[in-house]
């Protein structure tokens, strides 16, 4: 399949240091993930957490010929997907919020009308905003959160993707969680 070929080739180009590959890869990954996430959100009625890991992996299987990529390519893909996933989720949360405020109730299914989901959306958005603040003084922690949380990646995968030691990933993850927790709950 041509789509698979392209993404696979782009990943290989990225590994060889072709910086243009990233620009072409990003929209591809974003579009596919967006499509999958949209399907899932419409199907599920939305409102609650997506199983981000499953979606990222689904996108991976669809876009990448796994027989022709190595661990590093996979890690790059996942990191990219994690970033895309963050944007998709936050976009979705913001849209939901404005719909609820703006009163387009027809688009909200009964399941959405769960009284807690409003709060929930606020929490997702609060997390995103907290991450933005975190990024200003520690980009690395933010990247680790994107990989681990939005991309559902393991410590090993994150380590491959960000080219840092697994131990550092683990520690960064601990610290980021502590900081975000405090920022959201106690700030």
């Amino acid at each position, binding site marked *: 399949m041509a789509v698979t070929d392209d993404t696979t080739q782009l990943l290989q180009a990225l590994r060889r240091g072709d910086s243009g590959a990233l620009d072409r890869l990003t929209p591809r990954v974003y579009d596919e993930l967006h499509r999958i996430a949209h399907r899932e959100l419409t199907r599920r009625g939305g409102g*609650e957490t997506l199983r981000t890991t499953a979606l990222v992996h689904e996108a991976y299987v669809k876009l990448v010929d796994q027989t022709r990529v190595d661990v590093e390519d996979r890690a790059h893909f996942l990191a990219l997907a994690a970033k895309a996933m963050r944007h998709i989720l936050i976009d979705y949360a913001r849209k939901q919020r404005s719909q609820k405020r703006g009163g387009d109730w027809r688009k909200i299914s009964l399941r959405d009308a*769960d009284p807690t*989901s409003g709060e929930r959306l606020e929490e997702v958005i609060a997390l995103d905003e907290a991450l933005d603040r975190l990024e200003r003084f520690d980009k690395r922690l933010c990247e680790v959160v994107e990989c*681990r949380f939005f991309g559902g990646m393991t410590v090993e995968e994150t380590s491959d993707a960000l080219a840092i030691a697994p131990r550092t990933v683990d*520690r960064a993850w601990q*610290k980021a969680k*502590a900081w975000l927790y405090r920022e959201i709950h106690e700030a």
Partner: protein
Amino acid sequence: MRPSGLDPERWRQIDDVLDAALETPPDDRAAFLERACGDDDDLRSEVESLLVAHRRAEQSFERSPSPLGAMLATPFEVLPENRLVGPFRLLREIGRGGMGVVYLAEDTRLGRYVALKALPPYLGVGPEAKQRFAAEARAVSALDHPNIATLYEIDETEAGQLYMAFAYYEGETLDARIARGPLPVDEAAGIATRIAAGLAAAHAGGIIHRDVKPSNVREGVRLGTVAYMSPEQASGAPVDVRSDLWSLGVVMYEMLNGERPFRGDDHSSLIQSILQTDPEPPAMRGSELPEAVERVVGKLLSKEPDDRYPSAEDLLLDLRAIGAGESPSVAFEPPPASRARGRIVRDKGWIRRWIRRPVPAVLLGLVLVAGGTWLFSKPSGTAGPSIERLAVLPLDNLTGDPGQQPFVDGVHEALIGELGKIGTIDVISRTSTLRYRETQMSIPEIADELDVDALIEGSVLREGDSVAISTQLVVASPERQLWAGSYHRGAGRVFEIAGDVARAIASEIQIAPTPEVQRGLPTARAVDPEAYDAFTLGQFNLERRSREGLGLALKYFQRAIEIDSSFAPAYAALAEAYGSAVFFGLRRPASDIPRVRALAQKAVAIDGAEESLRRAIALNPSYAPAHLHLSEVLSVKGRYGDALESVKRGSELERFVPFSAFRPAVVLNYARDFDGAIEQARSGLEFFTDFWQGHWLLCLSLSGEGLYGEAVAACEEAVGRSGRTPLALGALGFAFALDGRRQEAKRVVGELEERAESQYVGASSVAMVYGALGDNDRAFEWLDRAYLERDVQLVHLADYVFFDPLRSDPRFDDLLQKVGIEP
């Protein structure tokens, strides 16, 4: 606000101290901070507050069902006893592990005991998140609690506290059981089978347990934990599902032997032993140990993961074989060196490779695994929810490829077939569920419409020769998920998966499946994937019942048989396709009827329609077509009362399908209860106005009642809607003649005779018009021709009103005899 104003420089300082503080044991942290921060009080309070946040974040993280929820959740709160959680009163703690607490609780509504897992107050858990949570929880709790895996309910208190109530069984822990001495082989194998099934479910869900052992109680037993570690785990190498299989091997060994295979005075000597020693065979200590069991344990305890079973499923096959008194297959394969490498990868493809990937411990954190009790006694008398009628909704095609739809439909069909074999539950026919393919209706609405207690939803993902099938059983009222499972296998093993699902569900609702289902027979055999594809394409086309569809169906079924000549469902389907083609007048039957019969016989391998149908029903009481065909057979035999019962049963199972909606009218016609038949036909037509056969039936029924004028009107509808099909024209001519409109009747018979020169026209249709016109000679000429051509309508010679005008003619009895119907 403290954090937002941070500059990178200041953060680096905080970060350094925080890093070092996290390295420091908690008790020494205060002293460490004293030293590290000196008189920078801001720095110190910043780090302290982050350490507090870290602890809370970790706690909520470990215990929450989703990473997002975990991150945002408030800290876990341990529940005091006697507290009410929803309708449950907490009585005492019965299990506690690294990740959660399980209480014995009383259901104040029903007065029964349950095992209750209470979860942290969790922000905004939607019903879907709950279902997913339950699915994930079940995969792991099945593993830790083979016998408390029946989930009664999952709900939320008004305060937002999520809880799950499981069936509670009295029992002792496996640890305590082993302490009393080695277990009998049967018992040990049974427990190992349950654990392996739990592992298979967990692995299918992408979870590696990493902590398989008889008890998860941690106090003072750290050595115990190490004792179950695989060599790769103990040496810090990456682990995959096969690491869990090793641990299960240790547990099996311990059950059989009473002692663990690897021992040591401290961690390092224990790890040495795991890495280097080969344990004595477990048979050395106990009495006679069957060689098969010994081999299984030996294979599980292979140092090299490649030498173990590739998956829990493969192990399960062997354990089940042992349980059934057969010899296991996998354990007796030649050693891997001589075995074709890469077989697994080719066989299971990408799914397998995924499963092999270690998953983050985070995933385990998604699920509240209550540690502690490993219970294995019988249920204490509590029954599962009552499910008498069940429907399987069309499965989602996750391949993203519409070309795979027939395959997905085939899986759907197989699931319905296997579930039907459970015997004690009614499973709605597949055709009745197709209308819900893209529905916006809720589960309770669908359940209400189909009058079922529960629904099965699911999805199918296929990649080459591998297929992943996920299903969940949802009870309609109150809506809750009862069971969920995922299966990954070769595409040819769809029936086997369907059988596994049926067994899992049967055990979930605590009913005994038929022996056939228990044994996974007779359909649970591997089918050539290509044959299976052809078969599903055939089914897909057969369902359309159009001229083109039937043609294609015949082609695909034949191809399926060419590829796999022992694939019984393909023969049965081919027979049905021929039968349908004949019934619809799309094919000249003379050549096909014997083929239909031969094929049908080949499919069921027995003579006698009634016997074979009854056997089919015994095997699958929910197989609606069998009931409907049986009613037909019984009618032909003149047993109208029985026929009516069969037809009712069949149409209960098959809703919203025109064929079954009109069957009662057909049988009532045979029984000459025309009043009832008219009523049935009319009520069917309210739903299926376009179904020409319904109008034809109404015409038949009205003629029986002598209402020829109305019968003409009904037949005109049938003729118009069928595109002037000969069967409808024959009925119209008949009604015209008896209504006194002879000219019009003659015009109709003329049209039929003319068409008979260039195409197949059922000769009986022409005969019935001549009969009604009183031209018996011509009528019998055409009936003779009908006999020669094996016109299927002759089967109804004794029944149909359309032949009534000819009954007094002596030639009629002769014909009945020739056809094989006793006059």
